[in-house]
């Protein structure tokens, strides 16, 4: 189920949006960067003669450091100077960030297709005795779902229980007000982007194992957008549920509808679904209703 993976990427979006009010178009590029950093350092480490497990740990560590540096740089050069600007300006600046990251990631780490093997990808058969043929389950998907679950639980605790988490939500509500009550906004934003970077890294490991690390990973981010819309921009559970709906929905649509009107429905189904949801419920399934006044 690619739905889990969409959820993972969408989670990165939701986090940044929830915690800083920035709609981060660059999440896909961050996944690409994390995946490339991981895969290239793994290759190098294995060549240098580390054992596989040390290499994996060191590689993930290296990728995490890369994401931390990226977060710091983004905060420093782009988001920091744009504090108190309106959401659209911030959104467009993240499009700029996307391009820089895509270019830089490929320039530094190369732009070929690299295979990544962290999780077992073989296939399980479930319920063989109950159904004829059983249900095909990829081990990787189980891993993905497991990791997503842990991630969500961890993040929920982080947001609700820790001091930083509360500060994050204050910043999202109003930059200026948060600043004036003494919340160190640059530090908060660094934390947010770091967390988003780490979520991107997790998504990168799972997705990279499935498809190999390549440029097309960035399109994943575009797929995550309808997931967000369906789930609601500010809701972590929404991202998960939305991801599952999109992942399952597009496969079902492809199989049942695609046969009638020509294949490749997967390509746009999520978007049209999102559009339909928007028309009925503009804030998404789990989103907060926005009340506006002058």
């Amino acid at each position, binding site marked *: 189920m690619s739905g889990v993976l969409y959820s993972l990427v969408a989670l990165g979006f939701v986090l940044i949006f929830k915690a800083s009010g920035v709609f981060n178009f660059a999440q896909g590029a961050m996944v690409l960067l994390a995946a490339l950093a991981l895969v290239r350092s793994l290759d190098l480490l294995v060549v240098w003669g580390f054992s596989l497990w040390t290499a994996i740990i060191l590689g993930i560590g290296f990728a995490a450091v890369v994401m931390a540096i990226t977060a710091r740089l983004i905060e420093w050069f782009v988001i920091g100077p744009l504090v108190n600007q309106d959401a659209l300006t911030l959104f467009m600046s993240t499009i700029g960030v996307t391009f820089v990251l895509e270019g830089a990631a490929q320039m530094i780490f190369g732009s070929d297709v690299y295979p990544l093997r962290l999780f077992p990808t073989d296939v399980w058969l479930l319920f063989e005795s109950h159904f004829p043929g059983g249900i095909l389950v990829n081990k990787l998907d189980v891993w993905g779902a497991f990791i997503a679950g842990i991630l969500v639980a961890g993040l929920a605790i982080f947001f609700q229980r820790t001091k930083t988490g509360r500060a994050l939500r204050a910043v999202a509500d109003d930059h200026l007000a948060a600043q004036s009550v003494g919340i160190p906004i640059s530090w908060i934003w660094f934390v947010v982007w770091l967390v988003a970077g780490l979520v991107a890294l997790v998504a990168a490991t799972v997705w990279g194992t499935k498809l190999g690390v390549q440029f097309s990973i960035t399109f994943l981010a575009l797929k995550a957008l309808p997931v967000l819309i369906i789930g609601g921009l500010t809701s972590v559970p929404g991202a998960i549920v939305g991801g599952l709906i999109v992942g399952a929905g597009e496969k079902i649509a492809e199989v049942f509808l695609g046969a009638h009107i020509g294949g490749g429905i997967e390509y746009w189904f999520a978007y049209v679904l999102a559009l339909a949801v*928007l028309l009925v419920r503009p804030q998404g399934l789990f989103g907060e209703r926005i009340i506006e006044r*002058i």
Partner: protein
Amino acid sequence: MLYREAGQFKTTYAADMAIFPIRQDRIALGILLTIAFVGVPVLANFRIWPFASEYLLWAILLPFLILALAAIGANILVGYCGQISLGSGAFMAIGAYSAYKLGTGVHIPLAWLGFAISIPPLPVLASILLGGLMAAVVGILFGIPSLRIKGLYLAVATLAAQFFFDWVFLRVPWFTNYAPSGSVNAPALEFFGLTVRTPIERYLLCLIFVTVFAVLAKNLVRGNLGRQWMAIRDMDIAAELIGIRPLYAKLTAFAVSSFIIGVAGALWAFVYLGSWEPLAFSIERSLQLLFMVIIGGLGSIMGSFVGAAFILILPIMLNLLPTQLGVPLSTETITHLEFIIFGSLICYLLIKEPHGFARLISIGKEKLRLWPFPY
């Protein structure tokens, strides 16, 4: 010294409200138009530098004009009405494919109703304009969600248009007249008995289109409608309170913008590409148009031209400069470098000058007015 408006008195309201109230601006524009309409064709005809080869016309001026037109369209929606759109490429595609269908004849068999709709091939001019109209209709359809949603949500809604139409033109063979390869050829460019073939003629054709539409757009945004758009952009609730109908304002913005983008798409396909496939109007094109608008200047017609020029020229400069300097880069590095430079430029401009190059130019003009005094 040169740029001074002292002594230019306005004695009528019409003069006060002119597009270019300052004489020097009018003269400059006149010179520019003369160069564009007379100078360039003459130079190109006699193959005088820099028109010794057709490269400049074909690879720079022609795409520049068409993309500038598309950027004007995008600017109306994004810059003037504040509705972020990531689907401009789709509207270009709709313009192109509708124009193609109309130019080659439409046949819709309605077997279940017992008859068929057939339209004979229309003249090229009519089909280009009707292609734009078609894009406007679809634009309105995709603009309808904008009444309930805005900003980021809307960006995703327009992205839906992008992906949906990418797919439609790739997979529905009716649109490509059942071409097996999926790529289609534009019909011959005949205008009132004249056939447009050479690059110079193509250039002039586009120039006429661009001039007409730029003037129309400029006047539109100065007028009642444009003010409504800007009010919606600046604060929609406040605009609604002072009596602007958001429905009308937003949908007209979508319609006008998609119309211009659609015409640009038809020109891009017919005049520049000649034969094309859906890839020509992918999401890359949408982002490119958005960049032109941001870099050139949100809410500025002139900015659209500057932005288009910049986006087109930067890659070419990146290709030429390193080799001139003796540091040849691989094409791959250049592409990546392009990405990085575009990205950082967008961030830089958003931080330092949210109104883009157009604002820089107008600051320059202000300074010139006072020159040599600093205040």
